[in-house]
């Protein structure tokens, strides 16, 4: 992992009192790294700013409407009216914000499962398995999510025939599969980085105790990797959740699609900002505790050299 390399790269000699550069303790993977950002500068009260803004707005709007005796619906009433649809989707249909969450769960599970095997493939002693795993990882790590979504939404079949019975594949399932691929690639990289960060001594001492390579990997190395992998893995979960609205572009009726439908039904431009803020705040409420938890775990799991 780049991040770990940097840490050792810029380690300052302890003997010098006049170091030009102190150790760089950056936001590890660079972009999207929720927990690292929080570690450096998060003030809990700032997290509630979004609600503060929305709350002041709604209050002001309601107050003005009352003073003027408006017959039209206030923003607050409209938000309340549409919230069940935006959150749970249309009746008898799987959709809305809970679909975003479901997609993020399933994609994470699939991506993690595939990514772990791919990551183990990356440290294989077999030249070809190693090469191919590396190439697959790089391919999916470096392609835009939306391009992958289009690719698999349009190229996977609509129906499958298993044992003579035809099953429909719902759009959201295909989207979930597409989203799991970049997760797979990144989990693979996280695992490779974690394995690389285990001291060689562990391998050597296992060998001296007559463990085979497979045994060493499964019984000694991988269990130690789990702790190191959990914080970045949770980080990627946050990123994935933030990316789930992309599926609305491909016509899956997630929270984003339904919000736009609601806006179209209302047809009043002053609802645009509060409605989008309302939807954003759900994502914020959902991802913020996870980010905080990640930060705590990261601190607890920090390896002190």
């Amino acid at each position, binding site marked *: 992992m*780049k991040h770990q390399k*940097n840490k050792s*790269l*810029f380690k300052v000699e302890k003997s010098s009192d*006049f*170091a*030009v*550069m*102190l*150790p*760089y*303790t*950056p*936001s*590890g*993977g*660079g*972009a*999207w790294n*929720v927990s*690292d*950002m929080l570690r*450096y*500068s*998060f*003030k809990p009260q*700032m997290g509630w*700013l*979004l609600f503060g803004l929305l709350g002041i707005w709604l209050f002001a709007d309601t107050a003005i409407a009352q003073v003027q005796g408006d017959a039209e619906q206030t923003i607050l009433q409209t938000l309340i009216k549409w919230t069940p649809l935006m959150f749970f989707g249309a009746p008898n249909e799987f959709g809305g914000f809970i679909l975003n969450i479901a997609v993020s769960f399933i994609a994470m599970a699939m991506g993690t499962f595939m990514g772990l095997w791919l990551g183990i493939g990356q440290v294989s002693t077999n030249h070809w398995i190693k090469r191919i795993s590396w190439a697959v990882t790089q*391919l999916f790590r*470096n*392609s*835009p*999510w*939306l*391009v992958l979504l*289009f*690719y698999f939404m*349009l*190229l996977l079949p609509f129906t499958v025939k298993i044992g003579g019975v035809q099953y429909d594949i719902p759009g959201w399932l295909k989207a979930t599969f597409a989203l799991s691929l970049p997760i797979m690639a990144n989990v693979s990289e996280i695992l490779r980085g974690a394995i690389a960060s285990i001291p060689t001594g562990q391998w050597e001492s296992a060998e001296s105790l007559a463990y085979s390579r497979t045994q060493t990997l499964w019984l000694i190395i991988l269990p130690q990797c789990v702790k190191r992998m959990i914080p970045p893995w949770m980080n990627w979960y946050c990123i994935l959740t*933030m*990316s*789930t*609205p*992309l599926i*609305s*572009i491909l016509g899956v009726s997630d929270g*984003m699609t339904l919000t736009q439908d609601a*806006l179209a039904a209302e047809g009043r*431009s002053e609802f*645009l*900002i509060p409605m*989008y*803020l309302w*939807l*954003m705040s759900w*994502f*914020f409420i959902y*991802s*913020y505790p996870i980010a905080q938890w990640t930060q705590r775990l990261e601190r607890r799991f920090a390896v002190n050299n």
Partner: protein
Amino acid sequence: MDAVWDWFLWLHQEHGIKLTIFYDEWDRGRFVKGIWTTIKLSFVCIVFSVVIGIAGAWLQMSPYKWVRRFVQAYIQFFRNTPPLIQLYFFYFAVDSVVSSLLGIRGGALDSFGWAVVSLSFFAGAFNVEIFRAGVEAVSKSTSEAAEALGFNRAQVYAYVTLPLAFRVCLPSLNNNLINLLKTTTVAYAIAAPETLYVANQIWSDEYNVPEMMNVVWFVYIVLVGILVWFMQRWERSIKVPGYGQ
């Protein structure tokens, strides 16, 4: 060049691989334009987001509590909400407010403009933190020495702290800019005519979805590859002597 186009025409006629972007002049023109738009969009966003990052990191060291809080709120807002919703928020919501305030009919900016604004703010939020971590890696004695030589706060930042910080945070910056390049595809959603959008038009016209999908994928892999190559070269050329291997 004509021989190449003819070869692709032959490929279509003989093997049914329909890459109209090579032998059809109209498709070729719009596809090249789409790639060019992606490059322009990425470049402008990279520049703006780096400027936001540098300015934000400077503001975060401000002695005024409210300035620091404002920057912090900006970062939190853009980090913890989905980029697609941000884009819609700017393109539909902010645009309608701004244009009604300024009395402009038909929108204050076009889709390309709002994509630039939205994606720059999005990537900028990450860059602020990246630069801030870099600034913190510059030891206090260095900036104090500069201060003793009569530099003021802005000068210390511009001439001493930032050049050193920049070198340390380049690897993180690389990652973020690569992500930015990949996120420009989201501009598809507001009909900015970038690669993915144009490809969509082409495959709707020509019914060659699988071919165009592969082409688009390939284009992005190449674009990301070029950016990585350039940034790594740059990283090597300006690294601080005595650090790293």
